[in-house]
Every structure is written in structure tokens, then in C-alpha cells.
């Protein structure tokens, strides 16, 4: 019984050590990707509140799972978009995209901001991850839980629509 107790202590220490290490890894991911993740969700949702909540919640979930998350960066990118999508769904997809949210940014961006508001959610998420985050279609498909071919269609249509809208804006 004593041996079992010692083994349990060793196991517990090892488990905590792994979680400690995992916590550090997750913090590093936050430092490296957190801001970009937040901006990607902000671009997709049009809402600072949704971006704040999704990013904080995704990292909180990663911390809770500890060493069970083997590739925190990939896992977090996927989860942050899933959480944001869930949040938008709960809110009835009322996305704000208010110009005040991006006050002070150059006009070409503000035009893009207005144009993004007119895209369906999946197109918007796909084009943000492709053209802002620089992801491949395969990576986007994984993050959004979609197929590579569907992402290709979303990105293509989103770009075309954005260009059309921006041309109208410039005209």
C-alpha cells in the first residue's frame, strides 16, 4: 500500500509537471499568436467583444486541458474560430462591423471593413485566414471544419465580392 502511495505521488508530481510545462507552452503561443488570432476573429466577427471572449476562452480551455493539447497553436486557432462561430450563432449572427470600431485606421482598410460586413460568415472567415493570416486552404479547412474544396470556393467568391465592392467604393 505504501508503494502504491509513493507511485501515486510520483504520478501526481509528473502530471503536474507536465501541466506546468503545458502552461508555459500555451503562454508562448499566446505571446506569439494571440494578437493575430484576436485580429483575425475581429475581422471575421466585426466585434471586439466576440474576439475578446473567443480568444480568452480558447486559451482558458487550452490551460485547462494542459498537456492533453499536443499542438497548442493549431488547436487554439481551430478552437478560437469555433468559439467565435458559436458566439455569433448565439447572438443570431448580428455582426456589427461598426466603423467606430476601426476609427483611426487608413481609409483603404475602413473600406475593406465595410465590404467584409457584406460577406457570409464562412466566406469572411476563409478570406481572413487566407489573406490576413496567410494560411493554406488545407489549414483553413482544418480550422473551420470544412473541406479544402469548399474553402477554395469560399476564398474565391469572397475575394471576387470584396474586389467588386471595393471597386464600387473607389468609384
Amino acid at each position, binding site marked *: 500500500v505504501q508503494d502504491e502511495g509513493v507511485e501515486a505521488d510520483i504520478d501526481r508530481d509528473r502530471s503536474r509537471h507536465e501541466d506546468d510545462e503545458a502552461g508555459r507552452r500555451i503562454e508562448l503561443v499566446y505571446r506569439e499568436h494571440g494578437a493575430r488570432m484576436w*485580429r483575425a476573429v475581429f475581422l471575421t466577427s466585426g466585434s471586439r467583444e466576440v*474576439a475578446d471572449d473567443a*480568444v480568452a476562452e480558447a486559451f482558458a480551455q487550452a*490551460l485547462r*486541458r494542459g498537456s*492533453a493539447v499536443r499542438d497548442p497553436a493549431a488547436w487554439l486557432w481551430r478552437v478560437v474560430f469555433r*468559439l467565435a462561430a*458559436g458566439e455569433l450563432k448565439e447572438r443570431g449572427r448580428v455582426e456589427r462591423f461598426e466603423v467606430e470600431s*476601426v476609427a483611426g*485606421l487608413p481609409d483603404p482598410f475602413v473600406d475593406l471593413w465595410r465590404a467584409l460586413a457584406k460577406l457570409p460568415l464562412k466566406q469572411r472567415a476563409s478570406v481572413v485566414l487566407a489573406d490576413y493570416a496567410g494560411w493554406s486552404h488545407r489549414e483553413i479547412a482544418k480550422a473551420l471544419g470544412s473541406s479544402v474544396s469548399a474553402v477554395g470556393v469560399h476564398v474565391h467568391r469572397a475575394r471576387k465580392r470584396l474586389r467588386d465592392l471595393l471597386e464600387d467604393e473607389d468609384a
Partner: protein
Amino acid sequence: MPDLKERFSMIDQIGSPDLWSDARRRAMTSDATSRSVSLQPDRWRRAATAFVAFAVFAGAADFAWNLSHPDVAPRPRPVPAVDLAAELPAGWSELPAPPEVRSDAATAWTGSELLVWGGYEYVGGDEDPSADGFAFDAAARRWEPMPPSPLEGRSGSAFAWTGGELLIWGGWDGGFRDPPYLGDGAAYDPIARTWRMLPEAPIGARAAFSAWTGTEMIVWGSTDRAARRVDGAAYDPISNTWRTIADGPIDITDGSAVWTGQEMIVFGAALDSNNHADTPTAIAAAYDPEANAWRELPASGLSPQAMTASWLSDELIAWDYDQASAAYDPVGDAWRPLERVPLAFSECRPVSVATVGTVFGEFCGKTVAMSADEGEWRKIPMPLPSDTRGECCWVLEPVVAGGVVLVPAHLYGMQLDPLERRMFAYNPVPAARTNRMGEVLDPEPFFPPTERDGGLLRMPVVFPDGTSATLVYPIALDLASLGVQPAVSYLWRSDPPPRFPIVFLHDRQASIAEYVSGSEPVGSVPSYQRIEVWRMSEEWSDRRRLPQGHWLRFGLPSWTVLVALEDAGQSEEIARTPAP
């Protein structure tokens, strides 16, 4: 006008809030109700417990843990994946028998465990479904009971493995009350060894067809011949929500649901209680979760009475009880006939499952396989005792476990009791392609880039543990032209067999006795002191199904590399190639 990427990059001028402390605070909070992003309460509780453990450790206040959490056991840690395909010999082998052989159970291969929950043990009568399950620990090679679940016993549930949880929903309770179906579900986390209930589904109780898309478990239709259903729902475990899906265009009560990577194909037929089908052939429809839309597939030409289907590479492979077989190509939206399954007609229901590059089929206790390379069925006789002592029948319940198929099997007797339980494993052997030396190439030849360095070639290789090395060898020993593929060959543990015959030993002191015969090399390369020729051990050759041959042993600063050569004459000729 700036292009889109330039416009997007302008958002980097916006400052993002520092959410790290918020994330840490949330991770330590057990009250989920204040969060606007909903999570399952069980997960919150479990996760919060885990994080408290982390925080306590960080503060080195070990005693505090024991004081404040006297009842919290050490949190189970993720178990490394077990690659049975690498560990088991090609073809059939046997593993420890399960406590029971469950039919119509919810099953999942977690990467290290086979979970079997619910279902019933068929011994020829009407058996009650169970409310418990077993897990086969592949590393320890033993079966253990799963923790008690919050669900009542059931069979024929919709189920899916999400990568972290076994989802179970609905099913038949084994009774005949009206209706005898269940409409609740739960998820089992094998790492935490805990269950949580699923939220209420937006569809009625039933035993449904199901498929896992990578993000959702789709639950559709019903296997109830008395109540046809075409509605369905999809459960997303991350948001812990259900959504309803579009109604299907066809009725099916018997058949298979298969995920293609883009669509869920349901294939089968609607039968009545007398086994009469609504349609002259088996029918199918495909659901696209992206578009939330269905499309009907052309008629298959297969019998609607009993059939099965699995997804192999890029086609649906279907097979009926009359042993006719056909493949459906979603791109061309067309069926093509396949050679018949080489088994005799019988009144059994065919069953098939697909693992990497191979469909495994079972019919009346007889087993067949079709590899994507061969494109035709072949018998793979199972090593069951032929003498069944006058008893009745073998029941086989195949489940995919990574690259192999595990087949719990039991023989039941005339007294309707299980007489013998076994578990077999089938490790598929795809059609071998060989290079000019007769070496097996698998699955596609891959030649890592090499750099010429005088008379040497340098080949960088990266190993699964993230370390890397450069294989340096004389041009005369052009491993690439021999088909030697270090990068791929080291990955043999996750590739379908046969494995590529090259072995890296991390530790130069590591014993190579496992691979070679004798204690001394049978030759060496005079010009290269660190290349020796060893005779391959019979055991290793048998295990890998390689013809008896030789190894070239390369001694590198931190690695020993064994390269298999099948033909002794050729190996010596190569080994004696003079230095350039």
C-alpha cells in the same frame, strides 16, 4: 489601389487587448454560467480541477492540494498512441480475448485503446443490451471495464470518436414498449475516464445512422422498419450544440453511413418487417454538411436485401449478400461493377470496415479484404479453429484500430451460450510494388533530396521525435536509386505494411541482435570501415514478411542505420563497390 492583402495588413495597426490574464482567470474559474461562450458543466468542473492542480504545483504548495482536494485522484495523463500496425505481424495475429463480444455496440479506437460500450452479446436469441463497456489497452494488452455511464443500456446507438471523446446518442433499449428507442446521449473522455451528458437533441428518439465529419456527429434517419424517418441533426462537441439538418430524400432502414471527407453517404434500402424492400436495388444519398443539402445517388444495381459499404481512398465500396460488389465514385457520380466477392451465398448480412487503403469484410464468419492497389476482393481466411465441436457459430465484430482491424469473435453453442471468446487482429498486406531489386516500395517511391559532397551524397532525414540527422554515404551506394527512403521508412510505424526495410537505431550501443543473425558481420566494405554486411535474422524477416536477405550496417556518429537488401549476392556486390 492597395490589394486585399495590403488592406488586411493594415489591421495590425490596431492594438489588441492583453487577454492572457483573463484566460488564466477563466481557467481557474469553475463557474461557467458567467461566461458568454457556453461550455459543458462537467468539463468546467474537470478542467478547473486540473488547472487548480497546475496552480498548486506552481506554488510548490503540495500539502494544499491534499488538504483542499482529498478526493481528487491524479489526473490521468494522455497515453502515447499505440501503432498496432507496426507492432503486429502482417496478416492475422491474436490478442487477449475481450470479457464479452458485443454486437451493435458503440466502438472507438482512441489511438491507444479500443472502447466498446453497450450493445449485446449475441448467442442466438434476443439479448438485452448492456449499459457498460470495456476498454482494450493496446499498450498493456489487457481489457479493463469502462467507468459506469449515465446512460441506460442500449444497442444500435449513433456513435462517433471525436479525437477526444466517444459520443453516443440514441439507440434501442432492447424492449418492445412503444417506442423502444432512446433519445439521450453522452460523451466519454477516456483520458479523464469521465462521462458527460449531451444536450437534448432536436430530433426524436431512434436508432439512427451516423457519421463523424471531423467537427460534427451527424445523426440521420432510423433503422426502425416500422417508422421511417428522413430527418436528422448534427452535434458539435466544441460548442456543445445540436443543429437540425435538411431532410433526406430517401428512406433507408438497413445499410451503412460513410463519411467521404466531404459528404456523408447513406447506402442501403428501406425494408419492411418481412424483409421486402421498397426499391428494386440498394439506393443511396449523400449529405453535404457545408451546404446542408442532400443529393440522390444513381441506383447501385446491388441487392436491397442486405448490404454494406465502406470508404476506400476515393470510392465507396459496396457489397451485397449475393456477393455482388460495386464501387461508387462521387466525382463522376457513377457506379462501376467490381468482381464478385469470393464467398458463397448465404443468409447472412455482410459487414465491412475500412482501414488505411484496405476494406475488410466479414460474411457468415468468413473474411475477405480489398486493397486500394489491388481493387479486387480476396479471401483472408481467419485462423479460427475449424473444429467447432458440433457447436454453432462464430460471431465476428470487426472494428478499425488505426492501421489494423481488431476482430472480437465468439463461438456460441446450441444452448445459446458463448463458449469461446477470442480477439484477432488483421494487419492488411497491400499489393506489393517492388523496385528493380525486388524491394517493396510503400506506398509511393519517395526520394528525399540529396546533396552531392565530392564522392558522397548527403541525405537529411527528420525523425518523428523532431531530431534530424544527415545520412552520408558514397555515391556508389546510392540509396535513393535502390529505393531506400529513410524519411519515409522511418515513418513505417504509421504507414500501412509492408514496412520499408530500413531501421534506424538511435543509440549506437543499442543491440542489433533483434535484426541480425549471428554475433559478427558476415562481411564488410574494405574501403569503408563503418559499413558492415549482416545476415538478416529469420525472426525479423518472418515478422516483416521479407525474403531472407542481408543488412548493410552504416555506423554514423549518433546513429546506426540498417538497410535491408534482400538478395545476398547483390548486397555483397554493392558492399564491395570500390570507393569513388
